[in-house]
């Protein structure tokens, strides 16, 4: 039985093992560069989501890493919080900004997503992301169909991509709720 199995399938096993080794090599070779690209993209996004930021310090708030953003004079202008969670298809990675008093969201940038092209990937578009700017961070926001009545708490979901939209909202809500108390304490700064 085993002999028959091996006789039929040895080539698949050999080729599969060969490619596993090849891919491990490719991952080892390209991995550091990919990680560096991701770091650079994140740092660039930090300046986009916190208006007026000229430089930042990394620090940790609980289990999360946050960026403390300063203007040229060294004054605190806000915080940038990287966060991730599951979307419709795969992990969504994003970073959002909080005002210096942590009460308002100042911007949102999607770093990585694999949502449906043409529908869910619209969460990357500037016009949709702009709705997050000015949201009240002290209570969880929600997504609605149609134009939002309460622009401080509601964001209009992308048509045909309700799950992608609510996923982004959920990721932001969760991270904001987790990080805000830590940033408000003097010890957390």
């Amino acid at each position, binding site marked *: 039985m085993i002999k028959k199995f091996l006789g*039929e*399938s040895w*080539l*698949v096993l050999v*080729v*599969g093992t060969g*490619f596993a080794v*090849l*891919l491990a090599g*490719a*991952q080892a070779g*390209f*991995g550091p*560069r*990919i990680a560096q*690209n991701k770091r650079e*993209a994140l740092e660039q996004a930090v300046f986009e989501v916190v208006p007026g930021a000229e430089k930042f310090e990394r620090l940790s708030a609980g289990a999360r890493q946050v960026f403390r953003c300063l203007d040229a004079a060294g004054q605190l202008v806000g915080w940038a919080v990287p966060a991730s969670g599951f979307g419709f298809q795969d992990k969504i990675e994003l970073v959002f900004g909080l005002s210096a008093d942590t009460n308002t969201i100042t911007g949102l940038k999607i770093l990585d997503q*694999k949502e449906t*092209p*043409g529908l869910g*990937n619209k969460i990357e578009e500037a016009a949709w992301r702009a709705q997050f700017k000015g949201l009240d961070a002290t209570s969880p926001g929600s997504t609605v169909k149609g134009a939002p009545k309460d622009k401080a708490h509601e964001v209009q979901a992308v048509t045909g991509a309700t799950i992608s939209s609510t996923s982004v909202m959920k990721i932001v809500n969760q991270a904001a709720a987790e990080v805000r108390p830590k940033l408000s304490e003097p010890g957390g700064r």
Partner: protein
Amino acid sequence: MAEITAGQRFKAGFWADNPTLVQVLGMCPTLAVSNSLENALVMGMAVTFVLLGSNLITSLLRNLLRPHLRILIFTLTIAGFVTIADLFLQAHLPAASKKLGPFVPLIIVNCIIIARCEVCASRSSVRAALADAVGQGLGFTIALSILGVVREVLGSGTLLNRPVFDPQAFKPHAWVIMILPPGAFIMLGILIGAANQVRLRRARGGAA
């Protein structure tokens, strides 16, 4: 069946057996990422690389393949090379990789590649299989680039992200549909129609 030479295999990809214009294979990337020349070139090069790799391996293994397991070997080989291409793009062309998004991993299910493994590489010498990969890959790249140039110039007013018209003057005349999915269908239809027209004329000329 007479052995088709490497030279014939190479030439066929450009016109007589062009993957986009004649076989009409790999339509998913053709329609989706031909909205700019840059996207078209990167996609074309990635597909050419994967074609080369998978045709080489398939041709080397051609005498060992079992009929009922061959598709498994093809898919395994293609997936391996696509992953390498994807990692390479993420590492060295991160901007292009981000623009192409899921369409790079989707090369795995691009039927051009599995069709070349089945039709050519699994029954040809290594030399012919490699020539076939280059010919088919370049034929695909050229077809995609033609679409890319037309769609980018008409839709965005740029070529390789550089403006070809005065941006202010162009803006009200931008043919936005060209960079949207319908533009891909329209342009591809025109391109295949034009190629068929040329083919018909030549055939008629040859008969007369």
